């Protein structure tokens, strides 16, 4: 009982600390644990190639939908290619594409590469706004010197 302070204020402070500390510790622990598997890095196809993304690792793949690459299979599977200036990556997606998915437009696909190097997308994002270019895609393309600003026709990867 000796460590229990005598002053009322000090006692109150210690009680509050004792109540808050475990919750904060729990929250911090969970946060670190949760972040391990939930962070997905963004790559364009060229960056993904350069970084040797391990198969099965959750990442986001962004770029422009290569015109002419979209194939819709009868079983609902869709195959298309995402391209930047230097590389293209094949993407396979089971599901309904967003309504604003178009050839030549910027998209971000969430998923992982399989052993064969095909990107298995779990979700494909295009935006509500048809003029929209995902920010990461715009930044990455700007770095590659491809960005022509809004409205200009974008150039594509390997023909």
């Amino acid at each position, binding site marked *: 009982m000796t460590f229990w302070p005598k002053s*009322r*204020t000090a006692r*109150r402070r210690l*009680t*509050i600390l004792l*109540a*808050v500390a475990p*919750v*904060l510790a*729990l*929250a911090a622990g*969970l*946060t670190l*644990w*949760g*972040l391990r*598997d*939930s*962070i*997905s*890095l*963004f790559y364009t196809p060229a960056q993904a190639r350069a970084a040797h993304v391990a198969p099965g690792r*959750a990442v*986001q793949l962004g770029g422009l939908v290569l015109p002419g690459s979209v194939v*819709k*299979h*009868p*079983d*609902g599977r869709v195959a298309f290619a995402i391209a930047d200036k230097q590389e293209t990556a094949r993407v396979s997606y*089971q*599901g*309904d*594409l967003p*309504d*604003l998915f178009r050839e030549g437009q910027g998209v*971000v696909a*969430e998923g992982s590469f399989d052993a064969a190097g095909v990107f298995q997308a779990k*979700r494909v*994002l295009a*935006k*509500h*706004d*048809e*003029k*929209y270019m*995902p*920010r*990461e895609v715009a*930044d990455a393309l700007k770095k590659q010197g491809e960005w022509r600003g809004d409205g200009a026709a974008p150039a594509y990867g390997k023909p």
Partner: protein
Amino acid sequence: MTVELGAFALTLALALSLAQAALGFAGARRPSLAGAGEGAAIGAFAGVAAAFAALVTAFVVSDFSVANVAANSHTAKPLLYKVAGAWGSHEGSMLLWCLILTGFGAAVAAFGRGLPAGLKSRALGVQGLLGLLFLAYTVFASNPLARLAGPPIEGRSLNPLLQDPALAFHPPFLYLGYVGFSVVFSFAVAALIEGRVDAAWARWVRPWTLAAWSFLTVGIALGSFWAYYELGWGGWWFWDPVENASFMPWLIGAALLHSAVVTEKRGALSGWTVFLALAAFTFSMLGAFLVRSGVLTSVHAFAVDPTRGVLLLSILGLSSGAAFALFAWRAPALAPGGVFAPASRESLIVLNNILLTAATGAVMFGTLYPLIYEAAAGAPITVGPPYFNLVFGVLMGLAMLVLPFGPLTAWKRGDLAASADRLKLAAAVAVLVGAIVFALVSPRKALASGGVALGAWVIAGALAEVAERTRAFKTPWPEVRRRLTGLPRGAWGMTLAHAGLGVFILGACYETAWKVEAAEALSLGGQLRLGAFELTLKDVGTVDGPNYLAERGRIAVTRGGRPVCAPEPERRFYPAGKQSTSEVALCNLGVSQIYVVLGERRASPDGGPAWLVRSYFNPWVQLIYLGPLLMALGGLLSLSDRRLRFAVGRKP
């Protein structure tokens, strides 16, 4: 002409906000000026209302010489969406924000008769400063009433995804919630200036918090419902930055609701309550910044503009920075309130607050971590739903476990063993429900069954509290009935809100764990299996809508050959914006739903036409929306309690 009058009224409102701020602060010292401050508050509201009416008129008559109308409206659009288009864009929604902000200021001026003159005058002054900041932003940086030099003949129309009844009403409710916290913020700053936070202050703050929180609940539920059936992904919550932006003020608001009760009833936690009052509106402004600046990639955000983002961040930094600096300076001087034992209702509410704020912190960290990471490591990342589900789920799960104890434990010094004794029946019900779900529902899922049990625990716990108050099962029925009718509305509100939370947990856990998904490209007459159901594509026809063309599929849903329902999903094409959207068809089966999306037409293997039909069976999904509705109703019921009338202050 109307538009110019509107623009003039808006500028006038800006000037009146300045007057309101000056007169409000001066009026706290010289009572003769306080009335003028109140007049300015009502005048500012009238000015913004006139500007808003002008904008709505411009949308209704399709005046395409107004830039905002030309960008977001179209002559062929139905009337509801012409009106809703007024707040469908960035500029219009900021005007709605200002309308509600000044509206709340006017409400304080008009209905706050029982408030002490000094507090009221200062709160109006702070509200005036907030109005000044946001109106200046609207007038100078995002004027919704700006004219175009060369007006187009036809407008570009509102994004078709936003042309939906749920989304037409989503922003007004959401903003009533977001901006409702501005009143609480103003009261907190005023109290800090006066250096006095007492039970009376908490009693004035509670109704505003309740109102804002209830509206925010409805707003978030509407937004989630919209995402559920309009985006066509079958999910209702994606832990997207924009969703989190609305959820953080809600969590803080919920914490504030509870801590304000402690401050009102027991005079304790006053500093903490003020802190939460400041934090709630800070999170509202943070949300406005995140949604409009485009710093985070989101599936649903406004067309973004970095300059505006910087301005909004400055407003956030200025108002919250000043308020928290004031808090740091004055809070230590606040009188400490009543003491309470570790086992008491106060302690349980403190625990609730710790868990809610920790959960808010976790959501905030997950939302902002991509920004931090990109600034530090230079690579863009996203934080996925597993993070949020884990951290938020565990913290809230703990809060839910503790929740039923709160109302059953006495103030000041309680007896947790006695509370546990009263909750025996509720615990038994929860365990039974969890066990039944675990045993009967296939596939077997232990964690989800536990979640369902938790939902049942919260509902049963809320009912156990009513039973305890009315001494049900212990006294004869007439006595119980007398006690039931005698319960104050605030008590019913609390029961309803807690039970609503339980209903939500039931739905959220069950739907997430046991939803079934199927997708296939179907030719006419083709069949798709969805769990126990069969879906047959009968026919696809074309439909001529008011401002769209659509393909409409007729689908027969059967279960073991017996017809269940006939959903008719559509795929709409809007020529004005050259966009197509899917109109999901929903079949209600009790509280569950069958969700059908008609996808694009594509070639079938035999060469004929086929349509991608995607379908979900979402069991118990309606509970997810019923729950928040009950919570909001609970909040409004409490608000109607005689003890919480705005004018309370005089002894009844």
